[in-house]
């Protein structure tokens, strides 16, 4: 039986290599190539010039990474504050206009957000919000918030109100109830939403460009001139850095969550045990 699936496994490995491996190998080789002429399968000489330029040169890479992360983090915090009560209302209450509220909150998934950003651009200009971090943060909220709401809704839908009622009977006030009962349960959902929020915010180009007018230099803004016909080695190195930053941001969030559960392990175990 197992033998029958060996060809399938080989086939999948091959596809995986072509699909994931080859692009990264191409980026990696190109980033350390010193001139890579056409028929040569490998560059004749290698150099770390491109990496040197973007990491230690005066290219402004670190500053742009800082700006990117700062914007992504502020957007994430705003999204959490907005999404938790919204998800609570959408999951736990039946009320008139619920579908309208859902339609409003999820509209930016379907309608491209740059349409709204281009529309509001001149108004932002008058309010002095263009070319500022605050303006870019505001522009990043609508593409990211729907995903955060969606993720927290999933968590809320598995949380029974019984838990809070029990805590209430034991004398916990609303703040205690939220902090000790609701929040630990929502955390995986919040983390999933935060990952998406960070990922989407980090990879925005057009919206940042319109509102930031080239003055708010995030990593995508900085690397665009290189990948649209600039030095291929620098472009490849920047691409790897950019992809790495996104993956690392997700990874560290994942780790932080695991660590949280490790330190809080006893209480979580108890809750899980009681549930069964």
């Amino acid at each position, binding site marked *: 039986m197992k033998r029958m*699936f060996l060809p399938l496994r080989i086939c999948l490995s091959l596809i*995986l290599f072509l699909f994931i491996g080859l692009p990264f190998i191409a980026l990696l080789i190109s980033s350390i190539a010193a001139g890579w002429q056409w028929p040569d399968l490998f560059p004749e000489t290698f150099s770390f010039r491109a990496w040197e330029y973007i990491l230690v040169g005066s290219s402004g890479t670190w500053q742009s990474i800082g700006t990117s992360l700062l914007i992504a983090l502020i957007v994430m915090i705003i999204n959490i504050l907005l999404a938790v009560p919204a998800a609570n209302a959408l999951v736990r209450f039946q*009320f008139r206009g619920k579908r309208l509220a859902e339609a409003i909150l999820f509209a*930016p998934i379907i309608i491209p957000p740059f*349409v709204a950003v281009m529309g509001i651009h001149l108004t932002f200009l008058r309010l002095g919000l263009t070319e500022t971090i605050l303006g870019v943060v505001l522009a990043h909220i609508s593409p990211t918030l729907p995903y955060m*709401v969606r993720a927290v809704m999933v968590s809320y839908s598995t949380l029974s109100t019984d838990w809070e009622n029990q805590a209430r009977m034991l004398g916990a006030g609303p703040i205690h109830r939220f902090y000790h009962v609701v929040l630990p349960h929502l955390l995986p959902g919040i983390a999933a939403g935060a990952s998406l929020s960070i990922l989407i915010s980090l*990879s925005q180009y057009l919206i940042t460009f319109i509102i930031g007018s080239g003055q708010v230099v995030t990593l995508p803004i900085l*690397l665009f001139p290189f990948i649209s016909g600039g030095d*291929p080695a620098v472009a490849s190195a920047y691409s790897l850095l950019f992809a790495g930053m996104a993956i690392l941001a997700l990874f560290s969030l994942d780790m932080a969550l695991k660590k949280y559960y490790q330190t809080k392990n006893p209480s979580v175990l108890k809750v899980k045990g009681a549930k069964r």
Partner: protein
Amino acid sequence: MWRKSKPYLLLLPSTGVIVLLFFGGLFDGLLKSLGYFPAIGENQMSFIAYRDLLGSESFWESLRLTIRVAAISSLLAGILGGALAIALFMLSLSSKTKHSRLWQRLFQLPLTIPHLVAGYVIVLLFMQSGLLSKLLAAAGIIKEINEFPVLVNDAFGWGIILAYTWKEVPFIMLMLYPVLARIQKSWRDVSRVYGAGTFRFIREIALPIMMPSWIIAVFIVFVFTFSAFEIPFLLGVTYPSMLPVYSFQLYTSGTLAERPEALAVNIILAVMTIALGLVVYYFSKRWKITKGWQ
């Protein structure tokens, strides 16, 4: 009273922000596309921008390109993603190990890659002097650099199609795998008892179960590609350009007169995506994609 107004209060901040920033932006854009712009003394509304736009050949060219690229890339991603999802599922049926999770994780890597990087990967691999061309030359299949077809910055949009296919295959897999995972292992055994081989099992059981979600997933990818900017901006040509790029070109071309036209393109784009989104919503509700089947 408190009980009744509580959900509204909880929703107020989030919907308020979206209404203000998103729908405010749409409305602002709509007004300006109609030429209403008090700050520069324009108080009249007219459909001039829309009339000019619908009368220009470049708009229709853009629309055709956008539909073509979105249709081909979503179909390609759908076929590849569907095949890979079934392959991974069959693998998980055959082995008890946790390998299939690792496979899935690896295949989902392109989802986390920013669009600009995905676009550049396609440039590196598929341009005339790119890696694939070098590989073909090394294998002796092509002799001149010109023998490799122009796939990047080409008028047909192959580069954009390739980039989107690469980005969206993992998405399709992500949508389909949970549906396939609901097939019990025992079903496979029962089908074998009745004499169905692997391919019969796929055709008679896996495919019909997957089909509704597959159609929805492909449609979602279609809508996403419709409103894409970064990849066509990087991999397309100046003319014809995909609608979002066309709008950006009009908006940044400098003259104030063309801005209403750019915003009109946006409004048309928004109306089309809303219509497509409603179709997705209607069918996913009707086929109960999000719910389980009993």
